[in-house]
């Protein structure tokens, strides 16, 4: 680590500090910090206001730049302005900033994967599984565990639905199960209602915002006595919630999860930011990562490939 590194300070702001995903991003960012010997300041900012304060706060502690996963992409212009005001270098991760017009802010370096893309991956995984089980599409019901308050959530489920429809899944067989909160219990309650309302349907698929949401649907299917082979749930995230499910002695309706690598998102962004500050090497404007599907049998391998654990 160069002498300069000692007083290099980089902020890493995330929108949901409690979420394992962001915990991992932070963990890998720390790894980069350790290697290069700069200080990493981790701040959680659940909403726009907290985010603005966080940026001021970074400026105040004399950081030179920060990586951010914003609570809302529409904050774009505000974030850019704040960063400039505090003359901090700015990079975004996971969610890409957009301007008032809704177009992405091209000149802010970004690394991530679009919510829609992840959703599509989920949809594809479900289709494949249905084929594998030899299900007929029109005897299958779909639970859309939705949390429409959160734009990312909408994009993800819509992504999945688009693929399903493309594959010929009937729109009227997709039932909405709005969760009041983003935890498993809420999803469980919402999904239970759907299942009971359509007792005639015996085969179900489920997708949602994240692993917790899909798990709720799977639990619901179990509670109303639908066997594991009558349920196909594919989640997003691939953290403990999913792993616990895979670890269970017997297979459940939770067949897989789309894992995104927190390693690249955490480690590389932090590293890029450091190079930018220390060696004035500006990162690529846009780096798109891909999600990988992990199943009960191959999840350890997938995680290794992605450099997690």
């Amino acid at each position, binding site marked *: 680590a160069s002498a300069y590194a000692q007083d290099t300070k980089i902020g890493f702001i995330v929108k949901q500090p*409690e*979420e*394992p995903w962001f*915990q991992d991003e932070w963990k890998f960012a720390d790894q980069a910090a350790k290697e290069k010997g700069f200080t990493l300041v981790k701040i959680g900012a659940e909403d726009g206001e907290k985010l603005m304060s966080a940026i001021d706060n970074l400026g105040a502690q004399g950081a030179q730049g920060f990586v951010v996963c914003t609570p809302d992409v529409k904050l774009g212009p505000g974030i850019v302005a704040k960063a400039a005001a505090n003359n901090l270098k700015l990079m975004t991760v996971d969610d890409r900033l957009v301007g008032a017009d809704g177009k992405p802010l091209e000149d802010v370096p970004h690394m991530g994967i679009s919510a829609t893309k992840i959703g599509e991956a989920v949809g594809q995984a479900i289709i494949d599984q249905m084929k594998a089980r030899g299900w007929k599409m029109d005897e299958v019901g779909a639970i859309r565990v*939705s*949390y*429409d*308050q959160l734009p990312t959530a909408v994009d993800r489920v819509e992504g999945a639905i688009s693929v399903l429809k493309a594959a010929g899944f009937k729109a009227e067989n997709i*039932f*909405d*199960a*709005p969760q*009041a*909160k983003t*935890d*498993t*219990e809420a999803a*469980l*309650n*919402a999904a*239970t*209602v*759907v*299942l*009971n*309302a359509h*007792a005639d349907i015996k085969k179900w698929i489920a997708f949602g915002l994240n692993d*917790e949401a899909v*798990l*709720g649907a799977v*639990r619901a299917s*179990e*509670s*109303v006595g639908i066997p594991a082979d009558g349920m196909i749930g594919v989640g997003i995230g691939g*953290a*403990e*919630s999913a*792993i*616990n*499910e895979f*670890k*269970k*002695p*017997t297979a459940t309706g939770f067949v897989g999860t789309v894992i995104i690598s927190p390693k690249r998102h955490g480690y590389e962004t932090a590293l890029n930011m450091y190079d930018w500050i220390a060696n004035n090497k500006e990162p690529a404007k846009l780096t798109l990562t891909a999600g990988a599907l992990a199943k009960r049998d191959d999840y350890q391998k997938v995680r290794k490939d992605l450099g997690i654990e």
Partner: protein
Amino acid sequence: MTDRLKKILLGEQGLVVIFIVAFALVSLLVPNFLTDRNMLGLLQSVVTVGIVACTMMFCLAARDFDLSVGSIVAFAGMVAVMASNYTGSILLGLIAAIACGAVVGWVNGVVIAKFRINALITTLATMQIVRGFALISSDGRAVGINSPDFYQLALSKLLGIPTPIWVLAVLFAIFGFVLNSTVFGKNTLAIGGNPEASRLAGVNVDRTRIWIFTLQGVVCGIAGILLASRITSGQPNAAVGLELSVISACVLGGVSLAGGRATMSGVIVGVLIMGIAENAMNLLNIPAFYQYIVRGVILLLAVLLDNLRSSALGRR
């Protein structure tokens, strides 16, 4: 209307009557509502709120307030899972969870009763602290359950009815009895109705309040265990915002925040109203955003109806 009907409507149980009418209406108007599957689903969905409401009722009746319930439920769930994974004995896990709940509740009680710190602030603080513990204990991650028997707590059935619902029913019965027929219950109401008078009458106000909060903790522990078993894992961010649902269920059920007034039947009705609202809205699949509005309107209507009732009754 005839005087007898009037009498029933305006009597102690008027709320219940109104509820039954409402229930009948929903059953008629909402398709797939009145199926036994859906009824069981409905009941299971109110287990957590219902269980915690039992003791929250005492808390409010004694003019206190508890915001920490959500965190305690989550924490207890984590403990239950981690402890039974660690010891390999589910029983020990359950005991540990309930013990943790009791300790947190007891701390709440002592701080509030002995140090005379406002209940809202105290429980707001413990709410944060306990949530912190829950997150730290597992580094913010969900914890899986090793022994499948643990799931059975929630999945097992008795006479075709899942265990959690039985637990809920039993707790309703117990706390209804405690409120009306025991010294503890009456003292609680007295403390809420007139703390000064209760103190002068020799009621041990502090001890009673500490007990109330400890019980609340225990009950949250039970709720946490059942929740963990239902979602087959301990999740540190479970039951966020539970406190508000529980408190509004109680107030819906005619529990006065000014203390001194509470009935178990009322609280049960309050809990069910909330559950039915959620259930029916999803059955009618009302879009998420409109659900907010419906929820709010239902809350208002329910209380408004009850007020009309009681003002017709002539009480302020």
